């Protein structure tokens, strides 16, 4: 257990694949609410870092400790993958699925499903097979399916990759509403513009290591590490 102002503590976290370290060692304290944006060049380990935090990636060594018991912490979390995973069901059934797992009453499930389908503009497609939606619609549905559980912490892995401007704006609006409602969001993105628009804090990863972390304003105006400076200047980071 960690103290209440921190929500997670990583100690000596290392992830190895085929003998090669793809992440870590990382010692990090995560605290506060709002938006934390994870930035870094391709292959920096952003997705692995997010998956480790959420517990879907097995760590080779080290520990991740949450401010509440692991099971409670995991139940208060949701994750949106870079390539949205659609259940082979209708839009309605995809939205209802996480609520059914929680064992909520049918009337409450129906009400939340109707609300979120309207929020993402898919009310008219409730009975349409989700895997046949467009990429943008699938991403919005995946986001709604994550938020419908009212998570404390939401992990987003490049949620707007390959989306057009309109879909990106809609998703950002939903994310702002979620943080205003009290959700903590930890998100990876390649889009520096999006990071500037949304981030309260930035975590900069390079070669599997956390090179820099802090308030977004400080990071964007006066980055401390050479890697972050190069990244913000648009240099090729090796």
């Amino acid at each position, binding site marked *: 257990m960690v103290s209440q102002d921190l929500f997670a503590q990583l100690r000596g976290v290392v992830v190895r694949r085929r003998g090669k370290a793809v992440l870590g060692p990382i010692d990090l304290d995560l605290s506060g609410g709002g938006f934390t944006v994870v930035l870094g060049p391709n292959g920096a380990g952003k997705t692995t870092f997010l998956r480790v935090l*959420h517990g*879907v990636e097995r760590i080779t060594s080290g520990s991740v400790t949450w401010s509440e018991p692991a*099971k409670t912490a*995991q*139940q208060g979390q*949701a*994750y949106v*993958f870079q390539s949205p*995973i659609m*259940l*082979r*069901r209708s839009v309605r059934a995809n939205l209802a*699925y*996480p609520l059914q*797992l929680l064992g909520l009453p049918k009337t409450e499930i129906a009400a939340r499903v109707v609300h979120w389908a309207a929020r993402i503009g898919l009310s008219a497609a409730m009975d349409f*097979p*989700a*895997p*046949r939606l467009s990429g943008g619609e699938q991403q919005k549905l995946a986001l709604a399916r994550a938020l419908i559980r009212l998570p404390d912490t939401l992990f987003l892995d490049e949620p707007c990759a390959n989306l057009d401007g309109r879909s990106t704006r809609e998703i950002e609006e939903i994310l702002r509403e979620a943080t205003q409602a009290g959700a903590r969001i930890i998100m990876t993105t390649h889009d520096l513009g999006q990071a500037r628009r949304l981030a309260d804090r930035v975590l900069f990863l390079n070669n599997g290591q956390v090179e820099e972390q802090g308030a977004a304003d400080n990071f964007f105006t006066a980055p401390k590490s050479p890697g972050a400076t190069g990244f913000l200047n648009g240099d090729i980071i090796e």
Partner: protein
Amino acid sequence: MSEIWAGMAEAFLLIWSRDADLIEITLRSLQVSLSALVIASAVALPLGTWLAIRRFRHRRFVIATLNALMGLPPVVVGLIVYLLLSRSGPFGVLGLLFTPAAMIIAQVIIITPLIASITHQAMRELWSDYHDLLISLNTTHGQRIATLILDGRRTLMTAALAGFGRAIGEVGAIMIVGGNIDHVTRVLTTAISLETGKGDFALALGLGFVLIALSLMVNLAIHSLSRTEREGRW
């Protein structure tokens, strides 16, 4: 060639005249094979799905064994079930030998590995699609299995139909444990075998065509009920 035409004519006549014996053995064939299918599916669908999602020691050996059991010789299965159910066998007191129940038991043993193996193959692919999401949602093993079976039901229907096809066309095992007793355990395949032995090829062929038609009808009915083609790909 003329015998095939004669067989088709015989089949037409049997159906047209609503032959009482034909109706009886057809219904018994359906009863035995569908019962075996339901029991085998209840075991094989969760088993195949469980094998797709669980990682445990000797898993590969279990899967290899399951695949090997797909080729179980029905005659050997029939012989083993016969020995188990015969009066001197461990289950002799149940008095099941030469009853439709014994035939169902033999067919369940034959088709369960087949359905489980096809299920495992299909569910492995679906599990690789769903893995991250279901882990992320903190689902239990039971919820994962239920989700995969529900969402993979169209593929599983194919597995079940393969099992039904094997069951309805099976003759070796049910001949041994059923005994082909008229009005008790005679089914279409054992009747065909009997008529062929007697040299009545036309009647044997006629029964054969009825069997093929029956198999096609059950397949179409199940596809229609599950709306496999109407809803397209998900």
